[in-house]
């Protein structure tokens, strides 16, 4: 993948991304291992610990909170309907 927004997390991100892409293409897409994706979870944890620090430092965690608040209003007004929690396959 491209860089992490926090350069100090690049190494951890790279490891996780590679693990995820392998799991996704070799297992998930083939219908194997559709009940858990634990094999990348340790790498994800390490990467996310690093990333969360960076998100906080840059004030992005606050933007995320705002977005979650805004979503409720936005979806109601923009789409004229409530957001589906579990998206359904559209009827053609």
């Amino acid at each position, binding site marked *: 993948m*491209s860089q992490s927004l926090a350069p100090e997390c690049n190494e951890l991100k790279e490891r996780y991304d590679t693990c995820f892409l392998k799991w996704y293409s070799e297992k*998930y897409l*083939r219908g194997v291992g*559709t009940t858990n994706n634990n094999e990348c979870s340790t790498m994800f944890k390490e990467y996310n610990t690093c990333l969360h620090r960076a*998100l906080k430092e840059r004030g992005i965690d606050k933007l*995320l909170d705002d977005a979650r608040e805004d979503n409720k209003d*936005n979806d109601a007004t923009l789409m004229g309907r409530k957001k589906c929690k579990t998206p359904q396959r*559209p009827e053609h």
Partner: protein
Amino acid sequence: MVLTHTTNHTYTHPFPTVTLAFFLRYCSPQLNPFASHVLSTDTIASHLDGATGRLHTTRIHLKKSRLPPAIMKLLPASLTGGAADKASYILETSVVDMREGWMATESRNLNFVGVLSVVERQMYAMPRGARAFSAGDTTDVETKVVFRSRLGERIRGRLGGGGPVQAQTALVDAENGSGGGGFLKRLGARGIQRSIETLASTKTQDQLGKSREGMMIILERLRQTGIMGVLELRKMARERSLQPAA
């Protein structure tokens, strides 16, 4: 004020490959030359629902701003973040259901929402009748983008005493400070909202074409070399970028 733009497209690639290309689309400029405006990509949440088999992913992308520099210059620093190179944080959520054969995605900007909110929703699906986990040859995608500028509404919100935020205050101050009623007031908030929405919509329609071309390049690469080939290419590109400039 809201502008909506909907397009449909059919990829001549099987659904599983298209979903993989979605995750890979900002992988590296070497792989996707149409992603050079993407500065970074991070996964903040990834969850596989064991009961439904659905994969829920949340990512944050940092992209160079879509708003023209002329507009960015007019806006107070408190709204734009004051940075010289204006970049947007984009929140992307996606749900993949391989059993039922669909992927729903949503992308929205996290900053500048007081100026313009862009929400893009995509629904990728196997053609009707195709069976899950069997590779049909095509994938349908519907893209719906909603543009909304809330510039004026925010000002009204403040004057009405409802939920002021710092950005609103700064905007009103900027208006008052420029004398003669201010630039924004002279043009009218609605006119400005409309202009911003139209500009962004036009730019986005260009961008949608490019984003599709980027997806196609990745899809072709996946067809030729498979995922391992793509991972190898990405690794090489990364190593090259890490080498110090001579």
